[in-house]
């Protein structure tokens, strides 16, 4: 039981995809301008990760080694298309604000990375737990970055005003704020590790 939990837990802190492994940075920065977008992307990516990890780990013995990457990409792209259609049908507003980054979940290196490094070598149960842990780690990272950016850039959290009379800095919701926040957070994580 303990090792099952360990597979789940490692993605959240020690091997956190964003802060420790530096994977999937493009969507992390692009959609983290407010918490709603960040959460939406986190949930979508977790769904794709879970689905593709389960399928790939269950057919891992059937896939020839030489063409494994195209096979993984087809499985991942299938789940991304499912997410795209679901978002368009039920959450059109979120779909518009995530825009081009919904189809781009296909090339999110976290998902291909977990398929190659974990799901292709482990059983379905472990792969599913690994996917959940990594997905939640990714979501947490998005949540942290988007809370900082939304608070400093718009003065709100989830759309609610927090401090009366706070003058937000618009630069934080634009591109430079995203790069700066991520750089400082990775630096902070390094500092925590070195202590």
């Amino acid at each position: 039981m303990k090792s099952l939990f360990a597979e789940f837990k490692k993605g959240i802190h020690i091997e956190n995809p964003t802060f420790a492994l530096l994977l999937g940075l493009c969507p992390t920065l692009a959609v983290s301008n407010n918490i709603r977008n960040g959460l939406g992307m986190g949930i979508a990516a977790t769904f794709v990760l879970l689905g593709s990890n389960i399928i790939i780990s269950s057919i891992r013995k059937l896939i020839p080694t030489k063409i494994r990457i195209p096979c993984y990409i087809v499985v991942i792209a299938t789940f991304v298309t499912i997410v795209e259609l679901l978002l368009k049908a039920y959450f059109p507003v979120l779909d518009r604000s995530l825009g081009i980054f919904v189809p781009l979940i296909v090339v999110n290196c976290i998902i291909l990375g977990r398929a190659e490094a974990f799901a292709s070598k482990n059983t379905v149960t472990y792969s599913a737990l690994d996917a959940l842990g990594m997905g939640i780690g990714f979501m947490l990272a998005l949540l942290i970055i988007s809370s900082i950016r939304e608070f400093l850039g718009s003065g709100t959290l989830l759309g609610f005003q927090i401090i009366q009379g706070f003058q937000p800095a618009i630069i934080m919701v634009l591109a430079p704020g995203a790069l700066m926040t991520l750089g400082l957070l990775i630096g902070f994580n390094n500092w925590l590790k070195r202590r």
Partner: protein
Amino acid sequence: MDYGKFMTIAISAIFINNFILTRFLGLCPFIGVSKQTKPALGMGAAVIFVMTLSGFITWIVYKYLLVPFGLEYLRTIAFILVIAVFVQAVEMAMAKLSPALYRAMGIYIPLITTNCAVLGVTVLNVNMFFKKDMSIGFSFIASLLQAFCAGIGFMLAMLLMSGIRERLDLTDVPQSLAGIPIAFIVASLMSMAFLGFSGFKF
């Protein structure tokens, strides 16, 4: 043909909506391969090449395969497969035809499959240039031009970044920020400078 429109597309793709610094596409190679100028140039050239030709191929696939059969919703799967196959083919052709070029650019080619800028530009082309009132010729040239200029913008950002990072190696950076974190902070300052271009009005 309206040359002004093409000019707008080119300048917008290179400067105003620079793929790396404004749209956040292709950050992995931007951070990973920008430590020195030479590999950065190689990667930039490889990306321009692959992007332009992927733009060309995906336009044809979308226009003459997906649209006639009403399969637009399959574009993500179709595009990523086309790009992956195309990149593999380029790698093999390059190894056979020009070993010198392959030695210089070969290691960057497989990395390009998962470069989100390439898939990004093809999806953007479909979103922007497949409106009803556009002629086939305009849509085709505009898509190719945007793909090519996005590649140029990518290379420009790579070159600038690698120049800065070569000098950064000699400076005394706080230990926790050394390496990748400081690269992001530099990128943030560069992106602030690129925000200046968004004042351009056409």
